[in-house]
């Protein structure tokens, strides 16, 4: 029992609770150690939705499969009822071991399915629960089963659980927040992955810290950017030097004084020009002022493709026929009617007919109006 426990053992036990933040798989061995230390029969870490009454046992120690499976689903409501129902559950303090037989009279349990069908056959005659979280998601708790052979729970067991309770709660809270943070971070990383332009995060020495999907493709092809021993470069050594200089400048201007992006001309391997933009990043963490590695974000225009027009979107908006949409696209790319006729294997007069329909439907008068219109509906990423 806890009063007999050494300081070292207590410290280890508490430490193993916090280990579960980093390695959630350890909940099982941690709860097993606590169950053993306190001399209780079994233990479950569970989450109950008080509204739908459905529950889920995330970790179970010393419980059989049926007990673990059905506590949340088949007996979800009964488990809440044995504690006096959802409203009563709201009134229990968090972080405090609560003895079921002190919360509701044993005489009422006999009418409870959970008690009759699951607890009695397993010779469980009481339960101590530490409520840990109560929020919009429901009620999170650690519950220890008390076997008939143990008699009443006893003050020393409760004292031991009282010592551990705040650590359980803190570990569950920190773990939940850490998961949330990790999820948010992953979401942002992925949103940047969606961007069609190449995005490379670099440190002040142009070392690559992160590349989004599009940049990754470019880096693999070495066109128009490449990975030279972990550093971002372009295929042209002069441009590479300019890029490195721009990145260094971005890193040094730090702070939000005047964050201006720097543009660098570059060429694809086939000679077509492209734009590279170096954008300085805030380097100080908002949390602790720690300096982070990424000093700049480098944007690289996606290949030499003309801006992508969503054919469907245009057709829908202006009720263009597929042929008209195609002519529209080619005109915007700068092709003459004669060239378009060649490309689409049509007569020039047909192309002109399509084009006049396009003008009519879109309300445009000149080719340059079409270009302006197209820039409006170019896919944003």
């Amino acid at each position: 029992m806890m009063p007999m426990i050494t300081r070292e053992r207590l410290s280890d036990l508490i430490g193993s609770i916090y280990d579960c933040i980093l390695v959630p798989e350890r909940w099982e061995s941690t709860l097993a150690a606590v169950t053993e230390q306190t001399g209780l029969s079994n233990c479950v870490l569970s989450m109950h939705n008080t509204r739908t009454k459905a529950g889920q046992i995330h970790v179970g120690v010393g419980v059989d499969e049926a007990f673990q499976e059905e506590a949340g689903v088949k007996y979800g409501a009964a488990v809440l009822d044995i504690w006096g129902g959802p409203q009563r559950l709201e009134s229990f303090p968090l972080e405090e071991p609560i003895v079921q037989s002190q919360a509701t009279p044993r005489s009422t349990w006999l009418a409870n399915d959970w008690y009759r069908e699951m607890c009695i056959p397993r010779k469980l005659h009481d339960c101590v629960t530490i409520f840990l979280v109560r929020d919009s998601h429901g009620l999170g708790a650690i519950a220890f089963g008390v076997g008939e052979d143990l008699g009443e729970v006893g003050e020393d067991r409760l004292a031991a659980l009282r010592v551990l309770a705040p650590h359980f709660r803190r570990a569950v809270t920190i773990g939940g927040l850490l998961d949330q943070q990790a999820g948010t971070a992953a979401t942002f990383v992925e949103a940047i992955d969606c961007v069609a332009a190449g995005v490379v995060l670099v440190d002040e020495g142009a070392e690559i810290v992160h590349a989004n999907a599009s940049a990754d493709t470019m880096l693999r092809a070495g066109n128009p950017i490449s990975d030279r021993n972990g550093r971002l470069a372009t295929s042209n050594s002069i441009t590479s030097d300019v890029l490195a200089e721009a990145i260094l400048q971005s890193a040094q201007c730090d702070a939000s004084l005047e964050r201006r992006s720097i543009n660098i001309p570059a060429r694809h391997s086939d000679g077509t020009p492209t734009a590279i933009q170096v954008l300085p990043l805030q380097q100080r963490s908002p949390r602790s002022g720690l300096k982070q590695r990424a000093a700049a974000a480098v944007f690289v225009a996606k290949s030499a493709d003309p801006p992508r027009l969503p054919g469907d979107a245009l057709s829908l908006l202006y009720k263009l026929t597929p042929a008209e949409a195609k002519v529209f696209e080619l005109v915007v790319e700068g092709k003459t009617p004669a060239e378009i006729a060649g490309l689409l294997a049509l007569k020039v007069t047909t192309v002109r007919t399509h084009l006049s329909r396009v003008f009519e439907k879109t309300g445009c008068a000149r080719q340059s109006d079409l270009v302006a219109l197209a820039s409006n509906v170019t896919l944003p990423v």
Partner: protein
Amino acid sequence: MTASDIAPERLSDLIGAIYDCVLAPESWPTALENIVEELGFATSALSVHDHTGEATSFASTGLEPDWLQLALRHSTSLPELWGGPGAILHVPLEEPILQSEATPRSTWRENPYYRAVLGPMGIHDIAMIPLVRDSRTLGLAAFGQREIDGEVDERVKDGLRLFAPHLRRAVTIGRLFEQHAMAIATFSEVLESIAAGAVLVDEALGIVHANATARRMLSNSDPILSRGGKLCLSAALPNAVLGDAVRQAAQNESAMERRSIDIPVRRNDGSPAVLQVLPLRRRTIGRAVEQRTVAAVFVSSAADPPRLPADAMALLFGLTPAEVRVFELIIEGMTPAEIAQQLGVTVATVRTHLGRVFEKTGCARQADLVALASKVTLTV
């Protein structure tokens, strides 16, 4: 008072206070002060140095406010007190080491760090505990013992051994939060700089995040709106399409094949715009917490004419600023006469500039200029 005398409840409280610092780093002085009091030290310091060698996060107790500056001024002679620059690197993590064990006290008198920093405070020993050590980071906790309080004995070291794993774990978990916070800050800043509007939404179209452009669009309700925190469009038909697209994204669990769904819309002035709905990979993190955000919705930004990077054009083609300006107006669809009027020059001057632009870029027609511009247009 040593660790073996601590009541279990008190020990539990002191350890709890250490982990409180994970979520509230400003509580570190309190947590350290507890240990200092419990074990009879005079001062304490907790520092995490990043790869630049800068002490990045720092908490201390029992030290004068100007102590850090003083310590930094003499920091070059600090390693010598510990047996040279590499010595501390070999001490196992979580294991306290005493300065008096590392080097003999007799050698300290000549050391500038000791004479300027430790001596004047009456500190005659330091217990140091390495907490984090990797290629980028060194984390240390140090506790100073005053001469009048006697030697740091084995019982005190046992006390430190009791707290060391908790200090280490709390620093490690704190650093994880830090790393995620940095990733969130960096990537949201990148998203912020994108010219298109970007909105991250949950399954029910609830807006989880909007970048600067999207926030502007939302506040003007053009072409996207926020209704009760949910992303929507003013026209019923595209609004239904948007809802479907996001639901589809939510069901597309793997998003292995990332295909965007494009939705044409009209701005309030009747001009067209396009929405792109991209599914985000869903993952279950840790204890069955589901990622809320299921899709990224990008909205083409309003009809800003393409802005050419003047310095890039100058470098690539040797264009003068005036030539770049004429280039820009041409691709916006202006005639030379219109450009002349806008720039306050004669039409002949515009034609001269235009001729040079054609010559320098190797273009023959206005349409070629448009095509060229699309290749070098700023991405963000």
